[in-house]
């Protein structure tokens, strides 16, 4: 079962080579291959959607508020051994994955640090770090259980990149998910003008480089607050020979001038920040996106559209996979938030598996 239903053929036609460090040994790679298979097994083989829907009396009907449905779903699941077994396996595969990724990267820590160092100052990609940068308190979470989180270990970018490789169970080994989002699921601004693009919370820059590949003439900037992510992103773009800029900035306070960007792109950021920061970010994007520009957001689907099993898994994931802010996002109603901040729909939203795409724009003032 693909996690995201995107057509990756066109994107793969680009023959993109993923820059993923090889692990310390074949043994580590086979171990992580196994974890990947285990994850596939849990996702595809440990399903109980029908059982849960039958017990809660909700199969297709999503008219009752999601909070109410979740209550029933949790009561029903508490009596289902398969739910506990799936939860156990889900948590275990994640712990196994991180243990092995970290020990394997640590075994060659010096070499990996050296690679990051060697990329410093090399082009065509550019890297701007802020020596006075202070990480916000709310970001001090070990999202997805990644040891030391996103910014406390210099190898956090490599850890994250390998971790997401396993997470996407082979579907993103060549960055094809990122490429496909950019190539097939990103509409242009109505007037077609694309000169400057902002990739919000770019992590290791997989969408940032894909954006540059689709819009070679545009100036493309990826921002993130994590220095290790940005260093890894820069290293990767240097290896790929793609001319993009990575800059250490907060999504809610970017420091860019008004109306700068034609496209603001955001892949799975909003569910990882508290509601207060979501609101600040929507205001900030409103400021830096030009009227008529395209704000493309890809993130968790909304709770009100979830099936009983999806509600159950979201509840589990938020608590057991280090996603403390995920519920607030899913239960908030992102459409009405966009409207509240003055955005208009630029194109109908799309569901890509359990990911939702929103396409918003700003009216000429």
């Amino acid at each position, binding site marked *: 079962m693909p996690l995201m239903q995107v057509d990756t053929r066109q994107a793969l036609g680009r023959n993109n080579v993923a820059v993923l460090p090889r692990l310390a040994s074949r043994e580590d790679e086979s171990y992580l291959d196994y974890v990947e298979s285990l994850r596939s097994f849990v996702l595809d083989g440990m399903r109980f959607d029908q059982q849960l829907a039958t017990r809660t009396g909700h199969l297709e009907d999503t008219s009752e508020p999601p909070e109410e449905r979740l209550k029933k779903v949790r009561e029903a699941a508490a009596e289902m051994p398969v739910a506990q077994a799936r939860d156990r396996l889900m948590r275990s595969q994640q712990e196994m994955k991180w243990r092995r990724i970290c020990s394997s990267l640590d075994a060659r820590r010096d070499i990996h640090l050296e690679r990051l160092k060697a990329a410093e100052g090399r082009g065509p990609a550019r890297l701007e770090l802020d020596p006075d940068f202070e990480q916000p308190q709310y970001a001090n979470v070990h999202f997805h259980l990644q040891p030391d989180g996103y910014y406390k270990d210099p190898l956090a970018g490599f850890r994250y990149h390998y971790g997401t490789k396993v997470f996407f169970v082979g579907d993103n080994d060549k960055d094809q998910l990122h490429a496909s989002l950019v190539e097939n699921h990103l509409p242009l601004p109505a007037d077609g003008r694309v000169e400057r693009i902002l990739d919000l919370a770019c992590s290791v820059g997989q969408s940032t480089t894909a954006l540059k590949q689709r819009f070679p003439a545009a100036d493309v900037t990826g921002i993130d607050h994590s220095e290790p992510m940005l260093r890894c992103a820069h290293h990767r773009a240097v290896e790929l020979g793609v001319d993009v800029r990575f800059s250490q900035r907060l999504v809610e306070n970017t420091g860019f001038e008004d109306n700068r960007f034609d496209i603001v792109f955001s892949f799975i950021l909003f569910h990882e920040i508290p509601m207060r920061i979501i609101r600040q970010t929507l205001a900030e994007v409103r400021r830096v996106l030009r009227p008529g520009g395209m704000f493309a957001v890809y993130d968790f689907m909304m709770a009100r559209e979830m099936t009983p099993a999806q509600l159950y898994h979201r509840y589990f994931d938020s608590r057991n996979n*280090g996603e403390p802010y995920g519920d607030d996002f899913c239960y908030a109603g992102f459409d009405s938030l966009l409207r509240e901040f003055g955005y208009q729909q630029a194109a109908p939203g799309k569901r890509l598996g359990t990911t939702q795409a929103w396409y918003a724009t700003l009216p000429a003032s």
Partner: protein
Amino acid sequence: MNNRHSAGPSGQTPEGGAPLAGNNPVYFKDPVQDAMMNMILELSAQLWVCVDRLYALEDLLARQGIVAAASLDGYKPDAERAAALKIRRERFTHDILRDLKSLTEGAAAATEPGGGGAG
């Protein structure tokens, strides 16, 4: 487990949000069951590593006639072998975790007409 693997630095969320499970969360009624499950998973992972290594060894033996121990860590299967290995690996995973399958709706479908089929 090493506490570097905790959900958050303190198991707490710095700004609201859902409460995070700390280290070693328990999902079954008896924590021993959780431990047993982890043992089995780890065992099977390690066993896979062995199978995989043997496979590599056989391949190298066939190709070179001689096994150089150092060559094992550099081994990378070609696309065809990688695909064959992936199939074997999935089969392997399925075999070890087969009993859990019996808890799912596929098995329930036999006794519950109309159930199952969610793939």
